[in-house]
Each structure stands twice: as structure tokens, then as C-alpha cells.
């Protein structure tokens, strides 16, 4: 059974909670005591029926204010796949939440209300999903029951969204007309939309092909930890532990270790279950080399004929999450990329991007909370990196405030 991670974006009004509730209900993932607690909470709030939003609003402050503050993770499974939903609220902190949820997602669900069509928020969500390199996007045109399941409404929304998405980098875009409330096209195809030739949403989630989303070409293995038992049984054992970021490693492969540039071959790929012939993402393994080299955390094992960029100057799109201070040129921060910490100086802010219009404000001289812009950074030590579009693992980094240790920004290398 494969694992599919997806992010949902939209506001309560779009019926997002109802949709998630429906997926969980119909796959029998909402438990009786959870339902009871939900009914009880709904009643305490003086509301009737069941407020499905309270399922994901787990914190006291969220219940009190009636808003979702933070990303909530939900889990369900069908016989075909296990799903992890990152449910990202649309109100407060939408950029931070959406970026967090989308960063590890295979797929993004964007909800629109059929009566309202594509609104500013839909465009924003699509842009963020594309910026974060989410390979598959599904636009759920919800509340079709309120427009009499009119095919023209669906087609109009579809073509309008397609036009906008053409400006973005979206690899796979699907559209599903649905009513989350009535269950149309959520789990089963609906008789109310005979003109719709696609599959139900759940069927799509179960079948969408994700295995080839992995980059199996560029071999990147950031060394996380050096395993040296130093006991009698494994006296000379020296293994480099890490998770394969991309590419495929096989025993006997020629490799180069960065930054030293030393070459060697893979003697063995170890796991606690025994050696394996091949390692691919996202496997966590331990690589042993044929030669005694000085390799440590932060180094990267690659192939001699396919190496990442190596340098101290990177251009990146930055999403700023700092609440206390804005990003300004000249700012210095701690930077983490793969398994490596270094420091970075913001040399230049090229522009700030309006996520609603995609307009570039080149006069901007700072990025505030939840703003996005293009920067040039200079790092104290060389990074081994790739274009984020080609490699989400080696093209991403975070910036951290040195006095407070707060995480300030997510960066995608261009």
C-alpha cells in the first residue's frame, strides 16, 4: 500500500471541512467517541447538528474564536492507499500554513464554490501549490447542487482556472464537479452529473500516479550521521547514514563526496534488515565506501558525472514568516539546507510578489509576515544545491533567527 500526502486549501465557506469530513466518514475513519465529542462540542456552542470544522480545530483558542489557526493533520486509508491530509486553514497565516502543508504534499486539493467561481483566494492557493512544486493539483468545484449540476457552470470555471494555471508551473491539473454535502463525485460517481466523464475524487486520490514524481536521475545523498560502532564485532565499520534525496544508488557505483571531491565506489548499502542492492528516495540507509575517506555530516555523496551546483551565492524565492521583524537586505540569518547549517547574508531583494496578481513590485525594500519575494543570498560555507523545480530536497532551505531561534523563512532555490 502506497502513501499519498495531500494538502487541502480553501476556507470554511467553500465546504472544505465538509469534504474532509465526508472522506473520513465514508472511509470509516471518524470514530464513535469522536462523533459524540463533536456533537457535544457543537451543542455547547449552541449550534445544531454537527459542526465538522470542530473535527480539525483541536486547540482551545481555535474553538473559542471559531477559526482554524494551524495546520491539522488527519489520516485515513482505503484498501489501496494510506492518506495523510495536511488541512491548511485559509484565514489567518494562510501563506505560512499553505507553504507548510504543501511542502511535503504529492497533491493539492483546491476548493471553489460553484456559485462564486474562481476568486482571489483560489488563485493564491494555486500559485502557492505551484511555487512549492506540488506535482498534482485537483480543483474541486464544490456546491454543484446549488447550481443545479449545470455543466456550463463547471466548464466556465474550468476554463477560467486553466487560463490562470497556464501562467504557473502546474504539471497535472484535474477538475472534479462535486457536492461534498450530498456526496456527489466524492467517493462514488454521481448520477447528477451524467455529463462528467472523469472519476470521483477518492478514486482519483487512489489512482493518481505518484511513483514517477520522484527524481530518480540526480543522485543526491546528504550525509546525516556517521555510524562507527567501535566495538569488537564491528571494529572497522564506518557507515554514512542518511535519506536518499534523489537518484538511485547501487552497490559498485562510482561516487564523489562533496565538498572534498574524493572519488570512491559504494561497497555496501546497509539497513538493519540487511544489505540492499539499490537505494531510492525516500529510503533511509547507510552507505559504506570502498575507500577510507574523511566524510562527515553535511557532506553529500553524488555521482561524478552528475553533481549539484556548488556555491555560496544562491538566488531564491523566499516566503517570510517572521512576525517580529521584516526581511531586509543586509540581514544575517542561520540557514539549514539538507543536513547542513550555515549562515546567510541577504545581499539583495529583487522584488516582492503579489500572490494574488503575480505582480512584481521591484521598489519593495522589505518582506513582511506572509510576503514572498526573490532574493540573492551569500552563505558562509558552500551549499550543494539544485533548482527547486528539479529537486525539492536539495533546492529547499529555511532561515532561522539567531537570537530567538525562530524559523523565519522557507526558501526555494532558482
Amino acid at each position, binding site marked *: 500500500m502506497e502513501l499519498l500526502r495531500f494538502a487541502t486549501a480553501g476556507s470554511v465557506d467553500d465546504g472544505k471541512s465538509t469534504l474532509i469530513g465526508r472522506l473520513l466518514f465514508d472511509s470509516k475513519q471518524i470514530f*464513535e*467517541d469522536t462523533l459524540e465529542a463533536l456533537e457535544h462540542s457543537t451543542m455547547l456552542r449552541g449550534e445544531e447538528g454537527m459542526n465538522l470544522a470542530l473535527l480539525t480545530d483541536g486547540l482551545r483558542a481555535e474553538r473559542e474564536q471559531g477559526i482554524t*489557526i494551524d495546520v491539522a493533520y488527519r489520516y485515513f486509508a482505503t484498501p489501496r492507499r494510506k492518506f495523510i491530509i495536511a488541512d491548511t486553514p485559509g484565514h489567518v497565516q494562510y501563506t505560512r500554513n499553505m507553504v507548510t502543508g504543501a511542502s511535503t504534499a504529492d497533491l493539492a486539493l483546491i476548493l471553489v464554490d460553484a456559485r462564486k467561481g474562481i476568486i482571489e483566494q483560489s488563485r493564491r492557493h494555486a500559485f502557492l501549490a505551484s511555487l512549492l512544486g506540488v506535482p498534482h493539483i485537483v480543483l474541486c468545484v464544490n456546491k454543484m447542487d446549488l447550481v443545479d449540476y449545470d455543466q456550463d457552470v463547471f466548464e466556465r470555471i474550468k476554463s477560467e482556472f486553466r487560463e490562470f494555471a497556464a501562467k504557473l508551473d502546474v504539471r497535472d491539473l484535474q477538475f472534479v464537479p462535486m457536492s461534498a454535502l450530498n456526496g456527489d463525485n466524492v467517493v462514488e460517481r454521481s448520477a447528477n452529473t451524467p455529463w462528467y466523464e472523469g472519476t470521483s475524487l477518492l478514486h482519483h486520490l487512489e489512482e493518481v500516479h505518484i511513483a514517477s514524481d520522484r527524481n530518480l536521475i540526480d543522485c543526491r545523498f546528504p550525509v546525516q550521521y556517521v555510524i562507527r560502532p567501535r566495538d569488537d564485532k564491528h571494529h572497522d565499520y564506518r557507515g554514512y547514514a542518511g535519506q536518499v534525496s534523489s537518484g538511485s544508488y547501487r552497490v559498485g557505483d562510482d561516487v564523489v563526496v562533496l565538498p572534498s571531491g574524493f572519488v570512491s565506489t559504494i561497497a555496501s548499502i546497509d539497513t538493519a534488515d540487511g544489505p540492499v542492492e539499490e537505494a531510492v528516495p525516500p529510503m533511509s540507509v547507510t552507505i559504506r565506501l570502498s575507500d577510507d575517506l574523511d566524510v562527515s555530516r553535511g557532506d553529500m555523496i553524488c555521482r561524478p558525472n552528475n553533481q549539484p551546483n556548488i556555491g555560496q551565492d544562491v538566488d531564491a524565492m523566499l516566503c517570510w514568516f517572521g512576525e517580529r521583524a521584516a526581511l531586509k537586505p543586509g540581514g544575517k540569518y542561520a540557514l539549514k539546507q539538507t543536513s547542513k547549517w550555515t549562515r546567510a547574508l541577504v545581499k539583495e531583494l529583487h522584488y516582492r510578489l503579489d500572490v494574488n496578481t503575480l505582480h512584481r513590485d521591484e521598489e519593495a525594500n522589505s518582506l513582511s509576515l506572509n510576503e514572498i519575494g526573490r532574493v540573492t543570498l551569500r552563505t558562509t560555507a558552500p551549499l550543494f544545491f539544485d533548482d527547486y523545480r528539479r529537486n525539492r530536497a536539495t533546492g529547499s532551505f529555511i532561515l532561522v533567527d539567531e537570537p530567538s531561534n525562530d524559523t523565519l523563512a522557507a526558501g526555494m532555490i532558482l
Partner: protein
Amino acid sequence: MHRLISHLDALESESIHLLREVAAEFERPVLLFSGGKDSVVMLHLAKKAFWPARLPFPVMHVDTGHNFPEVIEFRDSSVRRLDVNLVVASVQASIDAGRVVEDTGPRASRNRLQTTTLLDAIEQHGYDAVMGGARRDEEKARAKERFFSFRDEFGQWDPKNQRPEIWSLYNGRHRKGEHIRVFPLSNWTELDIWQYIADEDIELPSIYYAHRREVFRRDGMLMAVSDFLQPGDGEESFEATVRYRTVGDATCTAAVASMASKIEDVIAEVAASRITERGATRADDKFSEAAMEDRKREGYF
């Protein structure tokens, strides 16, 4: 054609990555180990992460003193078999030292007292990363937890002020006196845990499987009769075939009626269950809508 990675392989790999990040980035990590199934799986993963080397950190049991004897036996045999160092932080010692005052009465539980014992042990040993087996699917406040969760110098969790966690780039930076709680099993569900236990042939305390036991009914739950817990007025004890879905303090952890004596039976039961494991077995979560959130804010697991 490359082999597909199963969901359990993906979860295992994610957890191992996290455990190695902890060993690499912290000076004094510790792994919480109670003998409960989640901590058993976490310890199993930790052994795999550093194989063939020994664990680069100790394990710690916060001992309420109200234990199931089978679990303590299992804890001690695991520690010997896996060759790990065990630290025991004792709630009884906290009570004796006057750090906490024990509730009295038939409904008294030491569950909440564990927080002080845990925080004192963290301070005493100077632990900077504390790994726990909590899962996001367990409970609604836990659904909002990070993998790396910051705790201030009072050990407090501030759910409204969490660090954003993007990709798998974990930020474990902290100042002296602060620490990070790490949850390597965040993305596992109860069913994942059981399937993994079956796949990996992991040993568990016997009380997870069906056995005969003297119990009594309280608030709709089956509580075991023990030295620490006796039936009160109007509560009658009887013998039943039960098993435990969670293992915690004996005074607030309930058994469920079950005939599942083998792992396959347990998996079938969990897959068909319509009640969450905490809802079925934990008196401590029934106090209020936000019982877990409140305890977590204070520094609970």
C-alpha cells in the same frame, strides 16, 4: 522499474531520518520508554537507525509507581536484550521529596504528577531533546504538534506560537534551559503501529493480548483491580477476558473486552474498531474538551 515504497516503509524511513537528526544535532537527547506499544516501536526504530552501533542516547521511564507488573518486567527485559541504558524518573520520589502532592480518594491518579517528575528529570540530567511516542491521530491537540516541538525554560508548550515546519528541515535550535520534544511517530496511526509490530515481529508486554483479569466497571470502562485501584461503593468486580489498547498508569488506563490473543486478531479488531484508543481506555482525557491540550501546555508528554 523501481520498487514501490510501501506506506510502512515510508513511515519507517521518515522516523529513522528524524531520529538521526536528533542524534546529530543535540548534545543530550533521551528517548522516553514506558513499555507501551508506541514507545516499543520508537525504540525499535531507534535501534534500526543506528545499527550496528549502540543507541547514542539513553532511554527514560517516568515511573508513576502504579504499574502493571507485566509491563515493568517487559521494560527490564527489553533494556537488557537491546543493550540500552535505562534512566528511571520516579513519581514516588517526587512525592517523597515534596515536589508534588498526591491526590487522595478513590479517583486519585498520578497521571498528571508525571509532568513535574519528567520536567525535573530533564533539568537534572540536562536533556536537550526528549523523544516521545505520541501520534497525531491519537488526539486533537496532538494533531497540531510538530515533529520538533519547542519547550521554553518551564517546559511549556505554546500551541499558538509554534515554529513552522517546512519540508523535512527541522529546526532544533534552542537556548540553554530550553528543550525540544521530538515525535518520530507523528504520522503513524494506531493501525500502522500494529501492522508494523506484526511485520517486524516486535515483542510487546503480554497485557496487549487477550487474558483473564479481575476487573470492575467505572464510567463505562473496565478497570483492573490492583493494589492501587479497588472497586468503590456499588462497583462490583468480576473476571473477564480483556486486553489493553494503551498502557499507562494503572489507575487511569482501562482494558477492553477482547478475545484477540494473537497479533492478527488484534489488527482485525483495531481495523474494525469504531472507538479511538484514548476514548476507549483513558480516563484522563475525559475531564474536558481540552484535557490533553492543558496537560501538554504544562509539559506533559
